[in-house]
């Protein structure tokens, strides 16, 4: 299997995640779409690692997984805090920081 198939598939998944972030307004679904983009990056990393024949790209993918887990934990904590304060769970209404 050529590596370019995997890389093009990862570009497609990344574009789908970016589209989801632009369309959706629930912060939870936006976090899910961020996961899609990170996983697309992981797929490209592992495909390049196989192409070079070197395992270092896979270590990179594992570290990306750790960072994604941290991002999910903090993001879900924020969502729970927003929900506790009876604020709307809609990124268009939560824009006081926009300036």
């Amino acid at each position, binding site marked *: *299997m*050529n*590596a*370019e*198939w*995997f*890389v*093009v*598939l990862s*570009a497609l*998944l*990344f*574009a*789908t*995640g*970016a*589209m*989801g972030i632009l*369309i*959706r*307004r*629930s912060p*939870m*679904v936006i976090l*899910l779409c961020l*996961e*899609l983009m990170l*996983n697309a990056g*992981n*797929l490209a990393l*592992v*495909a390049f690692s*196989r*192409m*070079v024949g070197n*395992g*270092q790209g*896979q*270590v990179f*993918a*594992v*570290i990306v*997984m*750790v*960072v*994604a*887990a*941290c*991002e*999910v*934990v903090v993001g*879900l*904590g924020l*969502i*729970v*805090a927003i*929900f*506790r304060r009876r604020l709307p*769970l*809609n990124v268009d209404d939560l824009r006081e920081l926009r300036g």
Partner: protein
Amino acid sequence: MEELLFFVSALGALGGAVGVVAMRNPFYSVLALIVHLFSLAALFLLLTSAFVAAAQVVVYAGAVMVLYVFVVAYVGGGGESAWEPIPGQRFLAPLLGIALFVELSVAVLSSSLLALGEDGPDVPAGFGDPAAIGRLLLEKFLLPFEAASILLLIAAVGAIVLASNRRETS
């Protein structure tokens, strides 16, 4: 056989991704993401990286998705309002996504990476198994490994502080 496996898992990954974006109920979005993650694990296995595939299933589909399901059940997945702050957002965003895909594909395929069109070199039998990854992590990449563990600790403490039930005493 390899091509068949690739196309089946690529279809699963793409269908899961589209499902995450298209489902109105966040709970169904989480379920679609689980389908996506399992298909991605199959793709990692095709690329002979067994450890990353196992970590994908255990860490993502096992732990992170359980966290998502709990939070969706706690917050309650209401539908989104149909109101759009930017007119035509629902049509402009897919156009932008397609443009991004075309741009990324052109950038990758027209690059001078000669090995892109090949199958890659033959790798030894232990390529990408837990022993090889563990040796790399604990010998060559010890510092990023420790940094990742400190990052996990900070994230856990931060999540507890953010989601705790204490009253503001300012």
